[in-house]
């Protein structure tokens, strides 16, 4: 890559800082929202569509791909979830939630029409506008596809801004695959979809193995022009990060163009409870989306 510094536009950075971040009254403000759709994806995961009830709050609620929100069932609990839907829709989000604990199990019993609480959005997102004119690798393992569905929606809606787009998605078995009903549409939007499972069942016709195998295939034999003009978004279990990021590194994808989304259990989302700290960095403020250079400088990140 050319050793050339990028111009930093301070005004646009300032504009991103919203007023609510300074306002004492907004600290514990919860948007009342209603579950408008419950769509089972697998045995364990369900996609919930949630709409903010107040029309003004709905209009103002926007997010960038990669951000998370805090979802609350009063009396049951509150937990962070990545937003899994298109950022162009205001005040309505889709959350893909696995039954894993008290709150999520309770949620799986709650039907359409349930009133929930929503705080946020919080944290950093993927810099989609910076990626214009570039190739994109979207690499997901297991539930990692959930936060990636938002940048995928952005790419679909702005397909002309991107060059080659590849999704690499790996799960344990074909039964674990999420959003199977969308694969055709992604392909028709000229997004290459590469799926691999660790363990096939008799009906599986696709690849079997680890996600790094398909990544290797896609990256091998390209020229520097490709490597230097490619962004990578990686999301999955901690063990996957290491292998995938090391491989991207080997192919000289610039560290500042590799983004990962880290999972931690936030209790506040606002840099106060310290539960999401990595080393001593708040995942809820400086993340959950980090570039790989930052991650390398964090202790115990992945």
């Amino acid at each position: 890559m050319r050793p050339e510094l990028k111009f930093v536009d301070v005004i646009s950075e300032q504009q991103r800082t919203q007023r609510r971040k300074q306002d004492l009254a907004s600290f514990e403000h919860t948007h009342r929202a209603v579950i408008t759709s419950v769509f089972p994806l697998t045995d364990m995961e369900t996609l919930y569509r949630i709409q903010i009830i107040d029309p003004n709050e709905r209009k103002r609620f926007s997010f960038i791909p990669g951000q998370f929100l805090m979802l609350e069932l009063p009396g049951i609990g509150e937990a962070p979830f990545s937003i899994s839907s298109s950022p162009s829709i205001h005040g309505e989000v889709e959350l893909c939630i696995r039954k894993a604990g008290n709150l999520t199990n309770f949620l799986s019993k709650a039907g359409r029409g349930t009133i929930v609480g929503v705080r946020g959005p919080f944290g950093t997102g993927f810099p989609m506008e910076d990626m214009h004119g570039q190739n994109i690798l979207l690499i997901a393992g297991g539930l990692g596809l959930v936060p990636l569905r938002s940048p995928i929606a952005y790419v679909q809606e702005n397909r002309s801004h991107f060059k080659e787009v590849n999704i690499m998605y790996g799960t344990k078995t074909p039964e674990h695959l999420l959003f199977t009903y969308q694969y055709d549409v992604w392909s028709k939007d000229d997004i290459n979809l590469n799926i691999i499972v660790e363990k096939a069942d008799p009906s599986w016709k696709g690849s079997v193995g680890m996600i790094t195998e398909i990544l290797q295939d896609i990256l091998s034999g390209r020229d520097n022009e490709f490597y230097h003009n490619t962004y990578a978004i990686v999301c999955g279990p901690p063990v996957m990060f290491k292998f995938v990021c090391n491989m991207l590194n080997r192919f000289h994808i610039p560290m500042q163009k590799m983004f990962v989304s880290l999972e931690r259990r936030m209790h506040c989302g606002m840099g106060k409870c310290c539960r999401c700290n990595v080393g001593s960095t708040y995942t809820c403020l400086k993340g959950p989306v980090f570039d790989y250079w930052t991650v390398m400088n964090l202790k115990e990140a992945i």
Partner: protein
Amino acid sequence: MIFRVFEKKELKNLFEILAAHNKIVGPVEAGRDKHGEPVYAFSEVSDFNALRLGYTATKLPAKRYFLPFQENLSTYTVEDGEWQKSIDYNVSGPLIFFGLHSCDINALNKLDKVLLHSIYPMPYYAAKRKNMFIIGTDCAPQPFCFCRSMSSDTALHGFDMFITDLGTKYFVEILTDTAYNFLKHIRTEEPKEKDHILYMKTVSARNKKFTAQVDTTDLAKILDMEFQSDVWKHWGDICLSCGTCSNVCPTCYCYGVEETVDIDLKGAKKTKMLHSCNLIDFAEVAGGHNFRPERHSRLKYRYYHKHRGFVEAFEESLCVGCGRCGESCLAGINVPEVIASVRGGKSK
């Protein structure tokens, strides 16, 4: 800054004038330990004679008055599947703190940085902090005090007035107009040159009494370098992961949130409880993965947050050197020894 001096007997007058109209929290003797030494605690106090201004150190900081161990963030009423949320910042009124040492004042200043002056300021803390009137008082260095190493042995701000015992008189620094107006109710005088000299002598005599030390030179960098050091394993092996250090720490603010349904099913509560990064579930996520499953990784994280992360964010450490954690630790782990062992590269 405005300075005054006043006769010692005037302090009782000041206390009584303030106590007539305000709630006062101050150091009192809570009991005796097994050696017959007094155990001090911060408590609400209405009688000047119960106040122990010459106290050595309290076991617990005054934290419960600004970061209660448990408080409700919100309550809900639930009816026919609908709910309404109400928020209360849990502050009953202004409080006067009569006799905080510099370390505890500096602890508040440090907490202000993250809870008040960073993004998403915390109203629960702000409401209590903004309703504090603080009278600082000088202290006698104890063997476990290493505040001087942490630059917390004097407080430059964060209090309303600060009194220093000059023998027959009190020397008072006045920082706010509220304090200035309160002092109009008692007899004070302009300090003379001999008072200044006496003040400087008193302070320098006190400073000579510090014994415990921590070398903080380049500490943030060294902690990064020694992240994989075996000394952490050594301390982790003796640590009981009980969280007492966080409990007695004047600057530990980490917490967890839990929700409960009222027994009559008509309401619910969202409760904040102070947590400790030494407790096993601190960094556990959904599905059971724990980012810090070992004791040494949790103990290390605590040092990391205090002496590196906070430095990175605010150019100062989150430790005031009060030494309470070392005094209370059941395993005898204390900050000066841990830091020295990390700097030495080997365990003691």
